[in-house]
């Protein structure tokens, strides 16, 4: 019977080999994937057991881990509460993390491979490993001005440094207090989360980057850019501007936001059309340029392209396959044209920067606990949207809007502000969205901004962008240029 016992021994050896292979697979090859699984409490607990790095704005922590005496050891707190929620996101034991807390999670928690050598020295010297600090591009003054200017209105404000693409302000309203989600009293956290999720005004939504709105008349900047770039137009070119335009192949007419024609004899110049936001003029300019030219110009400003700032930004879109009537409507930012506030800020920033659109970014650099820089973001050219010649012509046209057009309420004494209003209809009988996008000072732009107020056009017609959004942009610009 010894031979079969020996053979049985081989079977046993094979069985044990299978176990060794399985444990090795799980604990070596799959370990990382298992640890990275969403909802893995062990990973969370171990990340709570070490000090997470801070998120800084201008050297001050807007998200910081404080020692706590419970089982989680460190409590994540947000000293400024709601002000930076859109940028920092939350860091919750129950609900994971969002925004920078999530995108820079492994660096903040100190587990990133980028920190390998630093961690290695920590192990050798026996120091408790600490997460890296993330330094944001936000400007505290601009951010606070944007927040207080927007106030309780539903909407968003984005401010960019036109020369670098650095995001100086990002505010969305209504927002939430990340402290409510980071607490260690999990029942309270759960209650807070449920009320945030059930809130119909969606406070967790970042309206600056994640929500698409019809851009309305602010889109006329892009049609203007396409027109000037085509070489067939200058700001002084005469364009049709009747009181209303009969849409080709339909019986409907497209009116202006004000009653009457845009100029004597139903004609006007391109610059004046932008100044008074003449719908019929831009509809006909769009029709004569053709949808390919308008779409290509929109794309050069960023439409249709996925961005990560590091949070992913919803891609704005200009529709394809339009019939002439749809193209006419699209040319004034209606029909199916969709844009994020960040996208419209990029349009202004690109014009401000001589036609060169910079890639927007929110994280300036990452530093270790001695504040030595581990990595930093270099400004990157996103695209050259228009020539510097065209950019300069567009600037002149935008200055006219603020000087004497629909955007006069953005005027700042002694500062040249270039801007464009927008009032976007998004449904029959609903108040329109109010837009304003601008940059200043015109001769040496330091800040480009986009403001959106949802359903802000209650004053009726084009007045929405000029009366509701422009004053907000003005306060943000004032903070940005140090006034």
């Amino acid at each position, binding site marked *: *019977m010894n031979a079969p016992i020996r053979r049985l021994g081989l079977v046993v050896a094979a069985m044990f080999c299978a176990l060794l292979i399985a*444990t090795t697979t799980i604990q070596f090859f*799959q370990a990382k994937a298992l640890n990275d699984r969403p909802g893995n409490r062990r990973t969370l607990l171990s990340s709570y057991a070490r000090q997470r790095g801070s998120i800084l704005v201008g050297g001050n922590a807007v998200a910081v881990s404080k020692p706590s005496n419970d089982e989680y050891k460190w409590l994540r707190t947000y000293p400024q509460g709601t002000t930076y929620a859109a940028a920092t996101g939350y860091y919750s034991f129950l609900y994971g993390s969002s925004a920078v807390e999530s995108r820079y999670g492994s660096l903040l928690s100190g587990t990133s491979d980028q920190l390998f050598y630093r961690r290695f020295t920590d192990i050798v010297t026996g120091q408790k490993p600490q997460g890296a600090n993330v330094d944001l591009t936000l400007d505290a003054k601009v951010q606070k001005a944007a927040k207080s200017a927007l106030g309780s209105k539903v909407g968003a404000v984005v401010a960019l440094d036109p020369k670098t693409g650095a995001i100086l302000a990002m505010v969305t309203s209504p927002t939430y207090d990340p402290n409510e989600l980071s607490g260690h009293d999990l029942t309270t956290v759960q209650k807070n989360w449920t009320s945030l999720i059930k809130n119909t005004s969606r406070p967790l939504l970042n309206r600056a980057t994640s929500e698409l709105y019809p851009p309305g008349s602010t889109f006329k900047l892009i049609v203007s850019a396409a027109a000037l770039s085509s070489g067939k137009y200058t700001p002084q070119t005469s364009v049709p501007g009747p009181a209303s335009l009969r849409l080709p192949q339909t019986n409907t007419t497209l009116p202006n936001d004000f009653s009457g024609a845009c100029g004597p004899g139903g004609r006007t110049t391109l610059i004046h059309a932008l100044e008074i936001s003449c719908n019929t003029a831009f509809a006909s300019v769009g029709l004569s340029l053709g949808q390919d030219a308008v779409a290509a110009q929109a794309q050069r400003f960023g439409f249709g392209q996925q961005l990560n700032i590091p949070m992913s930004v919803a891609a704005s879109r200009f529709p394809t396959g339009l019939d002439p009537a749809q193209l006419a409507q699209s040319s004034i930012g209606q029909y199916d044209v969709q844009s994020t506030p960040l996208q419209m800020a990029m349009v202004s920033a690109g014009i401000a920067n001589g036609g060169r659109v910079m890639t927007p970014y929110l994280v300036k650099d990452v530093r270790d606990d001695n504040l030595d820089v581990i990595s930093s973001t270099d400004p990157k050219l996103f695209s050259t949207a228009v020539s510097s010649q065209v950019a300069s012509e567009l600037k002149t046209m935008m200055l006219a809007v603020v000087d004497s057009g629909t955007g006069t309420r953005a005027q700042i004494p002694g500062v040249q502000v270039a801007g464009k209003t927008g009032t976007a209809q998004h449904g029959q009988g609903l108040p329109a969205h109010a837009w304003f996008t601008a940059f200043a000072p015109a001769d040496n732009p330091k800040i480009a901004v986009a403001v959106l107020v949802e359903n802000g056009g209650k004053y009726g017609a084009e007045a929405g962008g000029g009366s509701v959004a422009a004053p907000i942009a003005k306060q943000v610009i004032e903070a940005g240029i140090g006034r």
Partner: protein
Amino acid sequence: MSSSFALRTITPHTPRTRRGVELLLLAFAIAIVLLAYADVGLAVDNTLPPDLLTLGIGFGVVALALHLLVRWQAAYADPILLPVATLLNGLGLVMIHRLDLAQGHHIGQGAAVRQLLWTGISVLVAGVLLVVVRDHRRLGQYTFTFALAGLVLLLLPLTPILGRNINGSRIWIGLGPLSFQPSELSKICVIIFFSGYLVQKRDALSLVGRRILGFPLPRARDLGPIIIAWLASLAVLVFESDLGTSLLFFGLFVALLYVATERRSWIVIGMGLFLAGCYAAYLLFAHFQVRVDLWINPFNPHLSDQLALGLMGMGSGGMLGTGLGQGHPDLTYFANSDFIIPSFGEELGLVGLIAIIVLFAIVVERGLRAGIAARDGFGKLLATGLGFSMALQVFVVVGGVTRVIPLTGLTTPFMSAGGSSLIANWIIIVLLLRISDQARRPTVDEPGASAVGSADTQVVKSR
């Protein structure tokens, strides 16, 4: 050197008892366990456990007593088995204690105290058994008594008053606060019965029969026991919902049948019946389908996340583990019983878990080795059966939590919290000690034993 031996006509070969090695290994095993215990105390409470010394002395005294008993009663027994069992038992205790602490229990409360008590009882039972069963061949004389005992123990949980249904399986009996899993003891009875029965029937089973399509088939009446074993394991599966035990019993029977008859056809037949049984069970029983679903997709959000939690625990342990007391094995349900292996994987890492699996492999290997060395057919089958049952059980348990096979409920030998399992496994160790002692003992030493054994020894065919 060889020439000096060649001059002698009779080589006076006295095998060394190796008891010194056993003592040394035992001391080593106890040292590891105490180190682990101290480690847990330091990690969880930042101090050495207050009872480290008393517990250490107690543990040492018990182990030493068992060693002395082996020295006296089974001097030639395998020296590896006792230390390995002690180490596994001790590590299991430490982990159960560590999980008690995680649940807020203090020393003197919780599952570890019960397990310590059961360890004492098990060692006592083992000692008594070592004294009472002077020769394992005596067990072979009570073949059908053990068959009956095995069957009764197996079916006991189905009785209305004693039986208890815990976590969907009816494999427990309970009296007041005590609960017991009789299938663990039943397993040993059944191995003894199989060994005894097969030694008597092996010629009939292996030689008589017809070839059908070039495939040697035994006679129908010899096939009977296989069919009965198959039906019994199916019955366990159906009425007690105990997949692990039915797999264990059936696997054991096929293996022993193969060893006894040396005919591979039994394996083919056995595997065929097993697969047919599994397929039928899969079609018939929802809980079996759930197990298979969970095996294929452990992260299925609609099923239990127990397996997933265990896997994530093992993943967080990685190569070297979090260290005893520093992981979160308590996040997995049944962390101290069914899922004690993932608990070790998390805190001792891949390295520690491999060491534990290898320790089990050593026990199995020593069991099979005792089978090869045994001089009688009954002893060969018994040792092989005991060793293989350990291998199957470890395979089913560890394979279940590591997704080699679907998860079934069996205890991890020596480690899982639970008295029945501990007693059964210590009995297995004692029986293996006894068989290996008989195998290695010089026949001239014990006239009584050789008188019983000599007649059998000559009929054994050793191929």
